[in-house]
C-alpha cells in the first residue's frame, strides 16, 4: 500500500488513485438467491451484517489514506424500517467511482490483491446496498466529500439486478460538516433482536482498533469509544502470490495473462520467493511429472558391451570398430548406473571421439543401432538389479524368495515401457501390482511401507530427462499439464512468503485495547511471529484480561477477530473454539469443569488472526476454518498469554496467603508479647522486628531520640529491595547524607532510594528541631512485603 497521508491536501484526487486497481465482476443476480451465504438471511442478522460491512469499509478507507478513523454508526427507526447510517472521515469518493464502489457486487480491489485488509472480498458493502434495496425498495443514500472540495456530493443509487449496473437517481451537491469523508445511509427491513451482537461488534471493533474513535447510536442506547493511540496500523505491502498458496484456476488465469514465454520466467515474474534456483527446482519437478524419468541400470560386463557394439557395427574398419567399442565400454562401465538418454549421449560422444582420433565416422543410424544393441545388454538382467534395490530398501528381513519374486514381477513390467521412461505413479503401480501378485502366488505379504520404500528406491535411481519443459502457452492450454506444474510448485521447498504484508495489532495495543474496554486486574497479550498456511502468511495474536469487573459466573468470553474485524456469529464452528476447548486450562489456574471445554471464570480471551487470506468456513466470514497451521499458532499464542496469567494468579495467591499469614501472626504476636511482659513483669515489647522477620518482609523503623531521627530499613526478604522512600517532615531536617531534601509549602520532602540486600540494613539519620511530624511512603515493593514502624 502506498501512503497518501503526506499527499492529502496537496492533491485532491487521492480517491481517484485508489480506484485505479478496481475491476468488476457481475454477480448481482446471484445475491438474490444466496443472501443467506452472505450474512443477510434474517432481518436481525442483516442489520448486523450491513453495519459490519459499512464499518469495515470505513476503517479500510481511512487507514488506506493514512487518516485516523473517526466513525459514526447510527441506527434509526423509520416506520416499519430501520435506517443504517455509517460515516467516516476518509478521503471521500469521487463522483465516477462512487456508484461502482457501492453499487456493484464483487467489485473491489481486494478480491485480486494479496494484502491484509478487512474486507478481503469486494462482496461486502454492495451486498448491504442490494439488501436494503430489495427489502425496502429505497435507494442507497451516499454523501461524500473529497479533501478541498467546497461542497459535498449527494447521491441516490439503485442497482439493476439483471445487469449489475448501478443507476444514480439523484446527483446533487449538499452541505456537510465533515471536511472530507463518506456517509452512507441504507434503509432496510430489519429488527433489533440482535442488539447484543451489534453491541458486541461495535465494542470489539473498538478493542482491536485502538486508533479509531467510534460513536454508536441506536434507538435505545448510545456508546462512545475514544481513541487510545495515534498510531495507525503499520502499512502493509501487497505481495505476489506464493507458489504454495495458489489454486489451479488462478494458476491458469495467471498463465493466460503473463507476458513470459518460458515457465522459468513466468515463475520468477508472477510469484513471490521464486528466483532462478527455485524456478529450476520447480521445473525439474515439473519435467519429472510431465515427461517422467528414465530408469537407470547398472552397467554390464565391459566385454559384453564391447561384443554387443562390435556385433552391431557393420561396414567399419576393424580398428575403428574396436576403438568405438572400447570407448563405449570404458565410459559405460565407469558409470554407476546408466539411463537410456545417458546411453545415447555416451554413444554419440564415443562416435565423436573416434571421429577426431581416427577419422572414422559413425553416423546417426549407426549410433542408433549401437545404442539399441547396448541397451539390450544393459537391460538384459534388470531382474537382479531390481532384486538388489528391493533388498536394500526393505528394512524388515524379507526372505530371498519374496525379494526375487518382487524383482521378477517388477522387471516384467518394464518390458513394455519405452526407453524405461515413466512417471512416479507408474513405478508405484508396478510395485503395487507386483506386491499383489506376490501375495496371490507366493502367499507372502509385501506391506504398504515396504512398497513405498521400494518405489522411492527405484525412483531415486531414475534420472530426470533432458527434454525442455513445455512453454507457457502449452501449459495454459492443457489443464493436465497445468496441474502437473501446480503439483511441482507445491512439492518444491520454497522460502515462506514475506510477512511485511501483515499488520498485527501488536502486543502493546492488544493489551491497550483490552484495558480500554474491560476493567480487569490483569492483562496479557502475545503477538506470534508470522507463519504461513498454504501460500498465505498469517500472524496470530492473543490477549487475556482477568478479574476486576469481568463477570465471574459461567464461561469466559471469547473475542474473535480476523484482520481486525470482530466475528460475532458461529462461535462454535470457529477454529478458535476448538483450540480453546482442547487446552487444559487447569494448568493455567483457570476453572475448567471436567478438564476440557471452555473454561469458567472472570476472564476475557481475545484472538486475532491477520492474514492476506484468512480462511473462513463460509462466505459470510463468521468463523475461521480449521487450518492446522493456524490452529497451532492460535494455541501457542493462547498458551503464551495464559502462562503470564498463571504467573500472575500464582503470585496473587502467594500474596493472599502471605496476607492471611500476616493477619494471623499479627493477631497472635501482640497477645504473646503482652502476656510475656505481664508474666515477666517487664516493659511492654515492640514486635515489628520479629513480625517483619517472620513475614520475610522489609521493615522500616523510625526511632526518635530527642531531636535525633534514625530511619532504618532492614531487609528480611531473600532478595534485594530497591526502595523509593519519601518522608514528609514538618520541620527542616537540614542536609541528610544519602538522601535529598526538597522544601515545598513548609514541608520537607526527604527522598531516599536505598538498595538493601537480603539480610542487610540501610540507615539515614537527621536532626529535627523541636516537635516534628512525619509521614512516610514507600514505593518499589508490594505492600504485603512491607512492614512499617515509622
Amino acid at each position, binding site marked *: 500500500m502506498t501512503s497518501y497521508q503526506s499527499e492529502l491536501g496537496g492533491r485532491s484526487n487521492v480517491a481517484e488513485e485508489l480506484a485505479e486497481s478496481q475491476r468488476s465482476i457481475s454477480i448481482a443476480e446471484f445475491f438474490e438467491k444466496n443472501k443467506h451465504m452472505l450474512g443477510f438471511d434474517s432481518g436481525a442478522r442483516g442489520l448486523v451484517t450491513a453495519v459490519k460491512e459499512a464499518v469495515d469499509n470505513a476503517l479500510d478507507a481511512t487507514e488506506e489514506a493514512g487518516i485516523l478513523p473517526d466513525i459514526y454508526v447510527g441506527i434509526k427507526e423509520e416506520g416499519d424500517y430501520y435506517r443504517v447510517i455509517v460515516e467516516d472521515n476518509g478521503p471521500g469518493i469521487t463522483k465516477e467511482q462512487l456508484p461502482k464502489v457501492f453499487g456493484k457486487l464483487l467489485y473491489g480491489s481486494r478480491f485480486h490483491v494479496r494484502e491484509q485488509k478487512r474486507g478481503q472480498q469486494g462482496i461486502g458493502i454492495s451486498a448491504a446496498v442490494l439488501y436494503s434495496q430489495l427489502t425496502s425498495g429505497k435507494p442507497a443514500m451516499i454523501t461524500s466529500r473529497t479533501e478541498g472540495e467546497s461542497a459535498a456530493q449527494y447521491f441516490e443509487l439503485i442497482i439493476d439486478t439483471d445487469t449489475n449496473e448501478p443507476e444514480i437517481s439523484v446527483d446533487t451537491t449538499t452541505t456537510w460538516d465533515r471536511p472530507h469523508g463518506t456517509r452512507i445511509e441504507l434503509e432496510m427491513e430489519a429488527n433489533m433482536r440482535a442488539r447484543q451482537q451489534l453491541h458486541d461488534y461495535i465494542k470489539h471493533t473498538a478493542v482491536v482498533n485502538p486508533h479509531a474513535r467510534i460513536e454508536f447510536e441506536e434507538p435505545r442506547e448510545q456508546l462512545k469509544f475514544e481513541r487510545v493511540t495515534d498510531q495507525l496500523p503499520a502499512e502493509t505491502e501487497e505481495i505476489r502470490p506464493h507458489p504454495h498458496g495458489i489454486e489451479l484456476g488462478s494458476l491458469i488465469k495467471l498463465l493466460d495473462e503473463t507476458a513470459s514465454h518460458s515457465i522459468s520466467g513466468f515463475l520468477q515474474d508472477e510469484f513471490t520467493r521464486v528466483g532462478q534456483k527455485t524456478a529450476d527446482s520447480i521445473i525439474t519437478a515439473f519435467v519429472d511429472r510431465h515427461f517422467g524419468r528414465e530408469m537407470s541400470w547398472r552397467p554390464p560386463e565391459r566385454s559384453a558391451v564391447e561384443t554387443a557394439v562390435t556385433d552391431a557395427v557393420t561396414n567399419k574398419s576393424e580398428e575403428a570398430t574396436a576403438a568405438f567399442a572400447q570407448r563405449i565400454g570404458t565410459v559405460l562401465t565407469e558409470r554407476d548406473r546408466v539411463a537410456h538418454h545417458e546411453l545415447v549421449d555416451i554413444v554419440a560422444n564415443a562416435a565423436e571421439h573416434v571421429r577426431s582420433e581416427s577419422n572414422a565416422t559413425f553416423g546417426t543410424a549407426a549410433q542408433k543401432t549401437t545404442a539399441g544393441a547396448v541397451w539390450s545388454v544393459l537391460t538384459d538382467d534388470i531382474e537382479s538389479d531390481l532384486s538388489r534395490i528391493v533388498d536394500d530398501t526393505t528394512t524388515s528381513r524379507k526372505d530371498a524368495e519374496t525379494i526375487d519374486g518382487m524383482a521378477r514381477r517388477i522387471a516384467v513390467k518394464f518390458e513394455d515401457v519405452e526407453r524405461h521412461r515413466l512417471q512416479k505413479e507408474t513405478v508405484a503401480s508396478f510395485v503395487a501390482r507386483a506386491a499383489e501378485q506376490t501375495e496371490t502366488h507366493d502367499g507372502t505379504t509385501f506391506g504398504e511401507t515396504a512398497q513405498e520404500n521400494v518405489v522411492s528406491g527405484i525412483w531415486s535411481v531414475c534420472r530426470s530427462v533432458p527434454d525442455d519443459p513445455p512453454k507457457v502457452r502449452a501449459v495454459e492450454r492443457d489443464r493436465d499439464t497445468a496441474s502437473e506444474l501446480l503439483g511441482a510448485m507445491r512439492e518444491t521447498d520454497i522460502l515462506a512468503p514475506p510477512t511485511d504484508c501483515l499488520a498485527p495489532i501488536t502486543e502493546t495495543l492488544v493489551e491497550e485495547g483490552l484495558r480500554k474496554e474491560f476493567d480487569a486486574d490483569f492483562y496479557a497479550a502475545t503477538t506470534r511471529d508470522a507463519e504461513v498456511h498454504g501460500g498465505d502468511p498469517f500472524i496470530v495474536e492473543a490477549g487475556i484480561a482477568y478479574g476486576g469487573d469481568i463477570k465471574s459466573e459461567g464461561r469466559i468470553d471469547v473475542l474473535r477477530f480476523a484482520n481486525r474485524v470482530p466475528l460475532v456469529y458461529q462461535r462454535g464452528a470457529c477454529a478458535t473454539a476448538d483450540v480453546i476447548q482442547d487446552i487444559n486450562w487447569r494448568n493455567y489456574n483457570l476453572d475448567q469443569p471436567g478438564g476440557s471445554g471452555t473454561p469458567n471464570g472472570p476472564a476475557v480471551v481475545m484472538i486475532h488472526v491477520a492474514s492476506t487470506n484468512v480462511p473462513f468456513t463460509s462466505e459470510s466470514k463468521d468463523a475461521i476454518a480449521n487450518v492446522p497451521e493456524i490452529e497451532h499458532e492460535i494455541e501457542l499464542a493462547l498458551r503464551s498469554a495464559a502462562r503470564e496469567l498463571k504467573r500472575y494468579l500464582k503470585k496473587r495467591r502467594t500474596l493472599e496467603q502471605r496476607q492471611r*499469614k500476616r493477619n*494471623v*501472626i499479627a*493477631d*497472635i*504476636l501482640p*497477645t*504473646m*508479647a503482652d*502476656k*510475656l*511482659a*505481664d*508474666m*515477666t513483669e*517487664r516493659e511492654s*515489647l515492640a*514486635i515489628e*522486628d*520479629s513480625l517483619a*522477620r*517472620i513475614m520475610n518482609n522489609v521493615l522500616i523503623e523510625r526511632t526518635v531520640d530527642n531531636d535525633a531521627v534514625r530511619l532504618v530499613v532492614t531487609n528480611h526478604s531473600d532478595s534485594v529491595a530497591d526502595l523509593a522512600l519519601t518522608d514528609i517532615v514538618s520541620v527542616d531536617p537540614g542536609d541528610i547524607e544519602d538522601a535529598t531534601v526538597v522544601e515545598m509549602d513548609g514541608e520537607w520532602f526527604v527522598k531516599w532510594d536505598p538498595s538493601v540486600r537480603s539480610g542487610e540494613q540501610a540507615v539515614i539519620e537527621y536532626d529535627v528541631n523541636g516537635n516534628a511530624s512525619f509521614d512516610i511512603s514507600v514505593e518499589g515493593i508490594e505492600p504485603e512485603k512491607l512492614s512499617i514502624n515509622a
Partner: protein
Amino acid sequence: MSTNTELDADARERLLDLAAEFYDQFAEGEVPSMRIPTRTKSNIEYDDDKEVWVYGDRHSTRSANTVTGAKKLLKAIYVIDFLAQQLDEDRSSTLRELYYLSESWNHETAQFSSQDESNQLIEDLEIVSDVTREDFHMRPEESGATLMGPIHLREQTRRGERDIHCQEDVGEGGYQIPNNPDTIEFLEHDADFILCVETGGMRDRLVENGFDEEHNTIVVHLKGQPARATRRITRRLHDELDLPVVVFTDGDPWSYRIFASVAYGSIKSAHLSEYLATPNAKFIGIQPTDIVEYDLPTDPLSDSDVNALENELEDPRFQSDYWTEQIERQLDINKKAEQQALASRGLDFVTDTYLPTRLEEMGVL
C-alpha cells in the same frame, strides 16, 4: 528431699524463665521459638549410664515463623501463665480440666482444639523446663492404680499425714496410689519382690488366692498401660527397698509394650525415663512359649497384631535376643492368649503352678 513449697517455687521459677526466654527473643527482634526433641520411635536411644531409653539428638523447632508454630507458642505461653499461677496458689488441676479451662482464655487462638493437644503441650513444657507434670500440679483424669502387699508407708495428703499398711489398713481394693507418689515415704516392709499385673481380673485372682501373703509380694495393678504414678512408685519401690520387679501381662504385642514402658520407659515420656522406668524389671509372661507349653486357649493374631509385632522387631527397646526370639515365635504360631486363659487349667493354676514355676526359673523365688 526438698519440701513441697521449695519444689513449687522451683517449678514456677523454671516456667517463668521460659517466658523470659521468649521475651528476650522478642526484644532482640528475633522470631520466638522453642526447641523440643523429636518424640518418635526413631529418636530414642539407650542411655548406658542410666540404663533407660532417652531421647536422641534430633530436635524440632516450634517457631512463630509459621502460622501453626505461632499458634502453638501462643498456647504454650497461656499454659505457662496458667501453671505459674496454679503453683503460686498451690492448687492443682487435671489434664482434662486444662483442656476445658482453655475455653475461658480471651484469645480464641490460644484455645485447645483437642485434649491430645493440651496433653502434648504439657509434655513439651516438661521437657523444655525440666520439671515433671506432677510438679506442675497437673494430674491425669483416672484415679491411679492400686497396690497390695506387706508394706507400711506414710502419705502426705492435703489433710495431713496418713500412715497406711497396704494389707492391714486397706480393703480388698488395695492401696490407691496417689497422683504424685513422691509424697509417699516408705516406712517398713516384709516384701520379697514386686509383681506388676496388667489386668484387674488377674490382680483380683491373685489377691483372692492370697498370693501376696503367701509369697510376700507387693502386687501392683498396672490397669493397662500404666499411669505415670504407677510407674514412678514401682521405680521407687525397686530403688529404695531394693526389691526385684516382675511384670505379668497378657501374651500379645500390646502387653509387651506395657512391659516395655515399665522397664524401659515410654516413647512419649522418654524425657522422664530416668524417673519413671525400672530397667531391672523382668517379664514373666504370658510368653509365646507358655502358650505352646500349657496349650492355652488362644485367639489368632489380627492384622494389627502382626503389624505391632513387626514394629516391635524394629523398636530399639526390644532389641534383645530374648524379645527377638519371643516375637518371632509368636509370629510363627500366629496366636495370642490372655492372662486369664490360665483359668482353663483351674482357678488356682496361676498361683499354685504357673507363677511359682516362672518365678523360680527367673531366680526370684
